[in-house]
């Protein structure tokens, strides 16, 4: 039930705090964050604000996407993200969200994005399982061992760790401290790392914690 911002991961660097200590930061380029629509209880069954992230070229969108934005006299934007809010009456289509009203320096934020895809991986890399000897006549290298007992229970338990897709999933990193907010340049510096590669899309929301003002 919180309003957030859409941004893009630029990369990591470090800055110094008042005491002169180095703070590792991730630089996030905030998007245009323009309100593209509102969801109401009467029309949609829930209330939310739809926000457009970055302005893009018109050819980057397909006709239905572009048509929806054109109807409301909005520029071509991507991606569209909904933020669930209780009251949508104060949001007008076409108005940008103000970053400084949503996040503040020193506050904690949750950052959500897609993690870097690692492809189909075995249990050694994916689940940090052990492996067998690689030499000395060993024929057991990196394959799985036992996946459970025998006749009793006669089945494999749910949730047994097995090889499969690793990465390329939605990850949320919670409670990252905002080190700096440059609303003019649309830059946000948060302490620590965020999911995904440089250039990846991120959604930034204020954390729901007792430490947030």
């Amino acid at each position, binding site marked *: 039930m919180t309003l957030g911002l859409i941004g893009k991961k*630029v*990369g990591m*660097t*470090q*800055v*110094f705090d008042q005491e002169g200590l*180095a703070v590792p930061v991730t*630089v996030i*380029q905030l998007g245009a964050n323009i309100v593209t629509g509102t969801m109401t209880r009467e029309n949609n069954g829930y209330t939310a604000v739809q926000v457009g992230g970055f302005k893009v070229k018109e050819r980057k969108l397909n006709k239905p996407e572009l048509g929806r934005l054109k109807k409301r006299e909005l520029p071509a934007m991507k991606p569209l993200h909904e933020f669930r809010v209780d009251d949508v009456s104060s949001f007008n289509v076409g108005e940008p969200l103000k970053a400084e009203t949503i996040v503040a320096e020193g506050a904690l934020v949750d950052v959500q994005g897609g993690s870097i895809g690692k492809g189909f991986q075995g249990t050694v890399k994916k689940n940090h399982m052990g492996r067998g000897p690689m030499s000395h006549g060993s024929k057991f290298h990196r394959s799985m061992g036992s996946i459970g007992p025998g006749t009793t229970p006669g089945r494999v338990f749910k949730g047994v760790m097995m090889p499969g897709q690793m990465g390329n999933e939605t990850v949320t990193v919670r409670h990252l401290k905002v080190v700096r907010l440059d609303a003019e340049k649309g*830059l946000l510096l948060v302490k620590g790392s965020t999911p995904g590669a440089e250039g990846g899309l991120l959604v930034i929301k204020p954390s729901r914690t007792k430490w947030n003002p």
Partner: protein
Amino acid sequence: MNQIIQEIESPLIKKNLPQMDVGDTVKVFVKIKEGGKERTQGYEGVIIKRAGAGVNQTLTVRRVFQGIGIERVFLVHSPRIEKITVQRRGHVRRSKLYYLRERTGKATRIKERIGARREAGAAAAPEPPVTAAAQQETPPAEQ
């Protein structure tokens, strides 16, 4: 490097640092906070390693103190480092002087770079004719 990151880093990077290379003997002045008071402490030793780039550049400085080798890593652009002075320029053929760790006494000596003292002297008292000649020489080269 990314333009945006460069813009963030550039005000943090110190511009008045001397030329420092591996093998040089340097004195690093570190600000230390002691019970609310701040004072500066010098730490002298040989640079055995340079790592990182941009604002993350570090120097590993080694010295032997009371028979025990001490290596300290300094974040060059940190505000806690007041200044760095080069005491002596060394001539070395490695970029990492890890071999000094296995040596003691006379074997740890590093040859001084030829011409380093003359350069240092010229920098301390710049001679106008030399710099003027250098300036005259550069524009034609650019054209």
